[in-house]
């Protein structure tokens, strides 16, 4: 039927190349599906549905499988595992409280530093600072009649955005290497000064002996910064222009508008970005395994060496015996539970942020 219709449509146009070939071509490209086509179609659609199910089941299976492998260790060590403070494979004594504390402490520090910079960058890139600043500079230099300079603000902005995204592309093991040879030597004099002058303040109460929580948290901050700035920037751009314009119309300065109107409107999205950055920091392994010092210590001091769940897994798994592998699986399950909870909360917050902004439009 379709082939016939195609012929009817084609026929009146007589001025074009030979009709014969046109109808032949039309017949070839438009025809009802054969039985084989329909069979293939059913098979292909079935395959995609099966694969879609498989990805969902995969997540369930990961949780279930790690849980199943960890079960013997859970039964054996029970809740003592979560509050124990020593990890000694020879004596069969396993406790991960220092690792849990270290994971949370380093991630909170990293997320806090990363958020300050990430949100500042998001504001800088989304509120037109570059274009107004560069325009003023171009005018001041008397170059405004140069054509090529008109695109400069856009180019600078995309250069900045891509460069910040590239921060996320550098492998974490390379950051670890850089941290060992650059961040630790840089931080040490500052840490020594803070410790000797402000040693009464708990976070500065120990000297930095080399690897420690602060260098690890600084590198973590660099690694979560692109996540936080990209998602916050999206949230700020989503703020409807009329809200911004209303603030300016009331006579607000640029920063009054940003701090009192734009950031509060985008706050749910920014908060979601911080939570997702926190989730990334929790699971980050290599930088912490290389920089945190791998010591089972619980301390308020940011200069003290520490341990994290992920670093514990990375350091002990390759040479673990059977007993220790069980305990490590238990630790992996704890890490999985923490990160899954944080990520699900972050995703839900972002969904709510989108929904609430929709109402403003």
């Amino acid at each position: 039927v379709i082939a016939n219709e195609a012929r009817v449509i084609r026929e009146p146009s007589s001025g074009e190349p030979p009709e014969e070939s046109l109808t032949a071509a039309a017949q070839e490209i438009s025809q009802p599906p054969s039985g084989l086509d329909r069979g293939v179609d059913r098979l292909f659609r079935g395959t995609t549905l099966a694969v879609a199910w498989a990805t969902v089941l995969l997540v369930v299976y990961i949780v279930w499988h790690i849980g199943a492998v960890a079960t013997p260790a859970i039964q054996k060590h029970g809740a003592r595992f979560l509050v124990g403070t020593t990890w000694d494979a020879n004596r069969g004594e396993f406790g991960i409280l220092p690792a849990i504390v270290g994971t949370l402490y380093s991630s909170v520090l990293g997320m806090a530093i990363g958020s300050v910079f990430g949100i500042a960058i998001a504001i800088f890139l989304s509120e037109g600072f570059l274009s107004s600043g560069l325009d003023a500079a171009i005018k001041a230099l008397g170059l405004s009649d140069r054509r090529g300079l008109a695109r400069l603000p856009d180019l600078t902005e995309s250069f900045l955005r891509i460069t910040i995204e590239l921060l996320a592309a550098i492998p974490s093991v390379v950051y670890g290497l850089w941290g060992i040879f650059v961040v630790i030597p840089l931080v040490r004099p500052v840490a020594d000064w803070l410790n000797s002058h402000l040693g009464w303040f708990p976070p500065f109460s120990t000297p930095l002996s080399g690897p420690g929580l602060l260098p690890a948290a600084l590198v973590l901050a660099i690694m979560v910064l692109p996540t936080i700035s990209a998602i916050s920037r999206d949230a700020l751009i989503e703020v409807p222009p009329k809200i911004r314009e209303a603030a300016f119309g009331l006579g607000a300065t640029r920063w009054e508008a940003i701090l009192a109107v734009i950031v509060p409107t985008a706050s749910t999205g920014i908060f979601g970005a911080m939570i997702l950055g926190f989730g990334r920091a929790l699971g980050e392994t290599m930088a912490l395994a290389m920089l945190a010092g791998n010591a089972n210590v619980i301390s308020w001091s940011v200069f003290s060496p520490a341990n994290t769940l992920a670093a514990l897994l990375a350091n002990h798994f390759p040479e673990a015996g059977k007993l220790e592998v069980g305990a490590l699986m238990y630790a992996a399950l704890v890490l999985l539970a923490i990160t899954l909870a944080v990520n699900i909360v972050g995703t839900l917050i972002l969904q709510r942020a989108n929904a609430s902004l929709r109402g403003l439009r």
Partner: protein
Amino acid sequence: MAATANRPDSPESIDLASLAWSLRQPRSAFSYAMSVVTGIMTVSALVPLFSVLYLLILRGGRHLGTAIFRELPPAAMVAGGGFGNAIVGTLIVVLIASAISVPIGVLAAIYVAEFGPETRIAAAVRFAAKVLTGLPSILAGVFAFATVVVTTGKFSAPAGGVALALLMVPTIALTAEEAIKRVPAKMREAAIGMGATPTQVVTRVILPTAMPGILTGVMLAVARAAGETAPLLFTALFSEYWMSNTSPQFLPRTLGDLMKPTASLAVLIYNFSGSPFENQIELAWTAALMLVIIVLFINLAGQSLAKRSESR
């Protein structure tokens, strides 16, 4: 402003000078200061990236030469050496991971974007992909260890491939879904109007049109996977040797060659970074430079591909 001041009903109590934009006014001075501070913070965030790149070129560039491709990792205190086996190993593990994750990611994306976008299973797939994005990479390694390594009884390249595939699937699925959704509806309708089955619409019209976007997602996923260390630590482990005993030594000849511990650039950097020997640390820097070159190249290629497909 002069016009406002001259209006007869203008309230006398407003000091118009306080509304002027001047750095002597606290309001505008604050605004100006904040602008400068954010600008400085943005620029300072670029410092780490350039510091990393500078050091990589400075310390890693010294040993760059053909020897790094031809030779094996050196023992302590031995001059020279390379990491040819680690480059090959990284390629093979990433290849295995792509072979697993690309079909899964693209097929799931086709279902979610094309066949059942409004269904409950599509929402579940999207949620699962987002949860997988947040899966710590070390847990992908733990999972691959518990499934592949425990089942086969060996540390091997496929075990590393499975771990990396787990990290690649969500990136590929989410970007492919976006790419498929961007295909104009009129192209889809034209194909349907010609009597194409849904499968023909997807394979002949939608996939070719969405290909640049899908490839971008694949390349970003590959770039991320190539740099991952944690999932390989106890799945592919590491090896000091080439993959095969017969020439050419970098090619695995049999399945047995593949089912052995496999070297990778990322794990080499980790192992050598903690080494007390200067020659191994220097090689770690060279390997890091190599890895960053590979990762940034794939990343930028993927992004330029995305930009080109957008402008079309």
